[in-house]
């Protein structure tokens, strides 16, 4: 009985908390960006402007949800759902503490990689189904960017897998009892972070959106809550990548004094703020720079990291 109740509460709790975190990030991002630009940000509605989240949600729900007549209607509707579904599914594998976690897959990491690959479909299909110029270019860029960054995202994680000897995220956190993997796998962490930023299409890798050149990129034709879904997906993606960096490289829930959940949330929060800081300070890459950086720098770098890690492990054992 207790087990059944637990198996209901945890997934729903994760679902609700993740979506509310994604909503709260709207406020956090605007406030933090403002702080870094010597402004205040939204501070009018409610304490510290926190009710801005509710106001934004009311606004986006009441907006006219318009589907352009030239769009491919079923795909157009499906695309924003895919990104939210895939990212939310990825949260299933994250162990928030020793006991809180939706599923305990022994191929957890592979599941995450599969889901993040599937989320490429969302942006590519959104760009394609919109059936107009700028979304198509945006969708094209998104597909190329995310596929090429997917490659070394997987490779950068293999060092961790070798050290922990498992794809299970819970086992990986257990393996960091003595030393967090951010020390032996520092380069792996850097590569994974960069790939993660590119996966979530955040600045400086926001070429698929690129407001200044492509209107809004792949979601130019979207309005109302469908548009909102892409943003929920983006914020969920930030949370997911941050949570994964914490799990894989920074010891997950481990930490002295404070309870494990607090440690996990704290570390994740710092990384989310880091994502926003990146947006506040770095300019967008050019498209050819993005591609050559991915294939000519990051891929060899992650392969080298993999080789060195494997060599050292072989020599030790």
């Amino acid at each position, binding site marked *: 009985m207790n087990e059944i109740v637990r198996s209901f509460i945890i997934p729903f709790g994760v679902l609700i908390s993740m979506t509310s975190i994604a909503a709260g990030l709207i406020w956090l991002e605007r406030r933090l960006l403002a702080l*870094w630009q010597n402004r*205040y940000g939204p501070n009018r509605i409610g304490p510290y402007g926190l009710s801005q989240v509710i106001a934004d949600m009311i606004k986006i729900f009441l907006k006219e949800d318009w589907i352009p007549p030239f769009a491919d209607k079923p795909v157009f509707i499906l695309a924003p759902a895919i990104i939210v579904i895939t990212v939310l599914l990825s949260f299933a594998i994250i162990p928030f503490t020793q006991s809180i976690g939706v599923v305990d897959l022994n191929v957890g990491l592979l599941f995450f990689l599969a889901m993040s690959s599937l989320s490429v479909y969302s942006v590519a299909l959104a760009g394609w189904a919109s059936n107009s110029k700028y979304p198509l270019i945006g969708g094209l860029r998104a597909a190329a960017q995310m596929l090429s960054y997917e490659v070394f995202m997987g490779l950068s994680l293999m060092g961790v897998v070798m050290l922990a000897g498992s794809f299970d995220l819970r086992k990986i956190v257990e393996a960091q009892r003595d030393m967090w993997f951010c020390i032996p796998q520092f380069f792996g962490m850097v590569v994974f972070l960069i790939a993660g930023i590119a996966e979530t299409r955040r600045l400086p890798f926001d070429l698929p959106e690129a407001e200044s050149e492509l209107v809004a990129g792949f979601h130019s034709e979207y309005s109302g809550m469908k548009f909102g879904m892409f943003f929920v997906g983006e914020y969920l993606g930030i949370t997911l990548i941050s949570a994964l960096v914490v799990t894989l490289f920074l010891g997950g829930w481990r930490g002295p004094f404070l309870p494990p959940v607090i440690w996990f949330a704290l570390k994740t929060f710092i990384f989310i703020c880091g994502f926003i800081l*990146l947006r*506040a*300070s770095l300019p967008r890459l050019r498209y050819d720079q993005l591609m050559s950086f991915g294939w000519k720098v990051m891929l060899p770098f992650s392969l080298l990291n993999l080789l060195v890690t494997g060599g050292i492990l072989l020599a030790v054992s």
Partner: protein
Amino acid sequence: MFSLLKSLWLVFLHIFRPRETMLYPEEKPYLSPRWRGRIILSRDPDGCERCVACYLCSVACPVGCISLQATEDEHGRRYPEFFRINFSRCIFCGFCEEACPTYAIQLTPDFEMSEYNRQNLVYEKEDLLINGPGKYPGYNFYNVAGLAIGGKDKGKAENEEPPVDVRSLLP
């Protein structure tokens, strides 16, 4: 690579900088006395209207938002029967203030005059008249002008010599 990290750090330090934003409704901005805002009609130090209804402001106005009607009281002083400024047309150029020979019409450092109803932006004379002399304290047009009005004859104004009797100039 190093420059990227440096720019990240420098942007992060902006958290500790003072904010550029002025929290407007709570914190009013400083406006210079010469700010061209809401238009007023001032009075001279004796409390009488300065406006002599000469129509110069109405003529100078590039958008034609000032309308008035001149009339005269029993002392021979001219004053506007009505004086109306349509602020939904006014562009706050200040030409009326420059044209005014009596310092009557003045622009003030006040811009908070939004209305929900467009008709409310038409200001009548009683909305425009203030009780003070505005930017020019102590100035009274009739005291420096040679015009004779009731209670002030020719030659009674400041720095004005008594009128010359042309007949007494005979040799």
